């Protein structure tokens, strides 16, 4: 099965990835031949202005979108050459997503939102109840397990989203502005949570953000300028 990764966090390798969008009649180049190598277990932060291409890069990494050219390989599996179905299965199994707009399913309870990725992988939801509750305990929301998302505050929702992103123990976690919709304090909590949960289990985390709080935790800091990836010195100015 090509979608299986080993238990170890994967190496991420982008080579020559280009992506452009057609907007208002002209091409807008977002990524122009990006190369990147991320080592297993690294926490990489993507800085940059809105529209600089951070989300596009994350989408390409998560297999949500396909590059115009170049390849994306995760753990040695070139996901850009997988079919739609295999890519979906790869994502389902190996990648956790956390969004700026939480993107919880409003029709499922908090617990059910956590259970869904597991169910999609074909695991018994009964057996998975306990791990989910443990995960909810880890994000401090075990008492809200049976609430619907619209009863939660923004911070609580994002904590649920983090829990959902990690519940199926993905080796790669992609977070797109996870704190963008939160106040500073709540954002901090969420970042700490993310950091501790990923570091604990030695997972690779790629996070797009413009929050300076995260920078301190990052192993590497990248930014996109004119479609190219620039590595910033960790101590250097953002």
């Amino acid at each position, binding site marked *: 099965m090509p979608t299986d990764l080993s238990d170890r966090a994967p190496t991420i390798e982008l080579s020559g990835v280009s992506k452009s969008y057609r907007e208002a009649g002209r091409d807008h180049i977002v990524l122009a031949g990006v190369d990147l190598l991320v080592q297993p277990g690294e926490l990489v932060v993507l800085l940059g202005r809105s529209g600089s291409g951070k*989300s596009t890069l994350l*989408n390409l990494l*998560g297999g*949500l*979108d396909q590059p115009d050219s170049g390849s994306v390989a995760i753990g040695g599996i070139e996901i850009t050459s997988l079919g*739609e*179905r295999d890519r*979906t*299965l790869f*994502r*389902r*199994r190996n990648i956790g*997503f956390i*969004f700026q*707009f*939480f*993107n*919880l*399913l*409003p*029709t*499922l309870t908090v617990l*059910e939102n956590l*259970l*869904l*990725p597991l*169910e*999609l*992988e074909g695991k018994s*939801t009964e057996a998975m109840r306990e791990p989910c509750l443990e995960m909810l305990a880890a994000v401090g929301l075990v008492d809200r397990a049976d609430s619907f*998302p*619209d009863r939660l505050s923004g911070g609580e929702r994002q904590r649920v989203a983090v829990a*959902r992103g990690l519940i199926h123990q993905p080796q790669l976690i992609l977070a*797109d502005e996870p704190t963008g919709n939160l106040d500073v304090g709540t954002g901090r909590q969420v970042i700490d949570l993310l950091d501790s949960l990923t570091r604990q289990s030695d997972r690779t985390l790629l996070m797009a953000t413009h929050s300076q709080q995260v920078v301190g935790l990052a192993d590497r800091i990248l930014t996109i300028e004119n479609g190219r990836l620039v590595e910033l010195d960790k101590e250097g100015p953002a």
Partner: protein
Amino acid sequence: MKRLLWKSSLRHLQRHPLQLALAILGVALGVAVVVGIDVANGSALRAFELSTDTIAGRATHQIVGLDGVIPEGLYRQLRIELGLRRSAPVVEGHARLLIPESPTFSVMGVDPFAEAEFRDFTSSGAQGSLNLGMFLTEPGASLLSHETATNLEIEPGDEFEIDVGGAVRTLKLVGHLRPSGEAQQTAIRDLIVVDIATAQESLGLVGSLTRIEVIRPPGMTEAELEERITAILPATAALQSRRARASTAEQMTRAFRLNLQALSLLALLCGAFLIYNTMTFAVVQRRPLLAILRVLGTTRREVFLLILGEAVLIGAIGTLLGELAGLWLGRSLIGRVTQTINDLYFVVDVREVAVAPWTLLKGGLLGLTATVAAAIAPSIEATNTEPREALVRSELESRIHRVVPALSVLGFVLLACGTGLILLPSNALWLAFAGLFAVLVGYALLTPIATMVLMRWLTPVAGAVSGQLGRIATRGVVTALSRTGIAIAALMMALSVTVGVDLMVRSFRGTVNRWLEYALPADLYLSVFTAPTRRFSPGGVTIDPATIDTIADLDAVSAINLLRHFSTVVDNESVRAVALQLSPESHGAFAFRQGDPTAIWRRIEAGEAVMVSESFAYRRALEEGDSVRILSANEVFELPIAGIFYDYSTEQGLLMLDRSLYQRGWSDDGATALSIHTAAGTNLDELSDLIRGRLPPDLRVRLSSNRQLRQESMRIFDRTFVITGVLRTLAVLVAFVGVLSALLALQLERTRELGVMRACGLTPGQLWMLVTQQTGLMGLTAGVLSLPVGVSMAAIMVYTINRRSFGWSLALDLFPLTLVQAVAVGVVAALLAGLYPAWRMARTRPSAALREE
């Protein structure tokens, strides 16, 4: 399928109960109409089968006369010479009792000695057993079912009078028929059993039988039997197997039933649109949600099955409810269907609702198929949801705008295909209906582009009328095209069905009305024909020449026309014919399709040619100048058709020939109808009394003025189309539900957008205006678009479907009122449908509307 996915899906439906209910209602209505029509049709046919089964008994074959009768000697030949002793002679006809509202009875003459193997009903006399001596030897001795006799208060020994196609006959009850089972109870209710001699005498069929029934002897093959019987049959008689007989009724009413079924399918089509509409909304509304699912790793297939599953669920519930409602509807439609069948085809009395399992199965299959078919497009649409759309909020509507050109092309292709199907040189009715459906769907696919164009034109107008809000309203329609387009298409479909059916019925009515204007030039019409079937029993009662002379001698009578209705065999087929002796002032009653009327009349009156009705010619693909071969009693006539005339009285067609020819061929001087021209200033009532005074006392005639006759004809016409009206109403109802649900979903979907507007300072009143304007615009669009579609539909029905069904050419009349009405109904329906969402929007606090998730 994943349980949580389902749960999420069900909760979504739960949270939109109104939408869900409307979608279910739409399917239910569509299925109900289909099932209802089927039940009504099926019950009528089943009742017919049941009565023929009871009356035909266990016969495997029957010998019938193509002109309605067979010579009685044939029975002796069959039974004695061929030794087919399992045979029974029958003389049968229809009669009514001389009481108001009498049901039509079947008078059945049998030979008791030949009966035992054929029929199951028992008979009994006053003291328990029947006096066969009385039954056989007393003229008029008859048996009625106990129930009927009791209801009519006829005791054994009582005499009662019946009207047999104009003649009054006295019968005497000598015993009761007893049913041998539940089903027979019904079948014998309207049955009068008499000895065959009494039947011949009462029905005017001395010397003839109406049929001979045969049970194939064991050990003889069907082919053998047919060969032996056919060898002795005269040219005017035919052998039918039981199967063939059963299908006659089916064939006779085929066009009628197919028309009803097609109309019911239109209702279902509207229902399918509704499902399409609902499911598309469900997809569009949930696109972000679907995108999240996709991000989380739900495959396209899973999404597809999820949406399809929802549709199937809605379809299943709707279908189930529809079946139940359909049974109820069928029950209430039976009366109307039966009335029409009785008016147009044959006598049948339906007392029981017959629900064939097939009916329910068909209704169920249609409901589910329509649902699934309607949901496939939205389901595919849902699978196209890109995961990244979860992250991007725009682009919801861009897709529909991209597919509009493709849809339009497909629409045009369907239109062309449909038109092609209709224009195919064929008489197949189903082809015409298939074409009609293709055209309708084609038009529906063109709705989005038509809407865009209309809105572009309307935007400046709307802007001029109500400024920025007006422009928002028109643009809103275009922006939300994926939703508004469907709503408009659904409403448009329903309105066009109304327009089409209405125009068709009115055109039909107009044509018949114009025909009646000239077809009844005389002042008084006298007819011995009172049977409810418009069918002449063979033989039958006639007015003798002496009586006609005494009427012609009356001072007030300026001219008199003689008609003799009869059945005969033309080109080996049973045909209704009329022998005419017309005064020249009555020639105008016939309008010929082509040719010089004077020349045509000259040839017909010389006995050199015949004329046939349009439907007669159409059914047999005959043209002016073609020859027909008529078997008369005395000789075979091979005559050309001099003219083809318009006639809307019977779809089976009529052949007319001159009375002199009839007298030569059939040696019969009688007439079945007279039409009388009167001197100026005659009091018709007084004349009618005078005429009645000169008729033999036992002759029952119908005497009507041309005005009464015209009214009566139109009354029957209108009765025939009542059921069409019912169906049309139901189709509109389905469409209304559709619009309501579409607009509701549309406006609810815009909650956030409207919330923003409210936040920007739009007052509740302005919001009302906005929503109302938008729904009104949609209604208007649907109304306007429905006009060409409705007119096309009417044209197809008038020029193709009616012609193929009945062989009549009708003129299409475009009644302006119908068109205006359609637009008005569209706008009003849309406004009504917009009321609730507008009210809800206006009531919602902006903050609540803005709240997410």
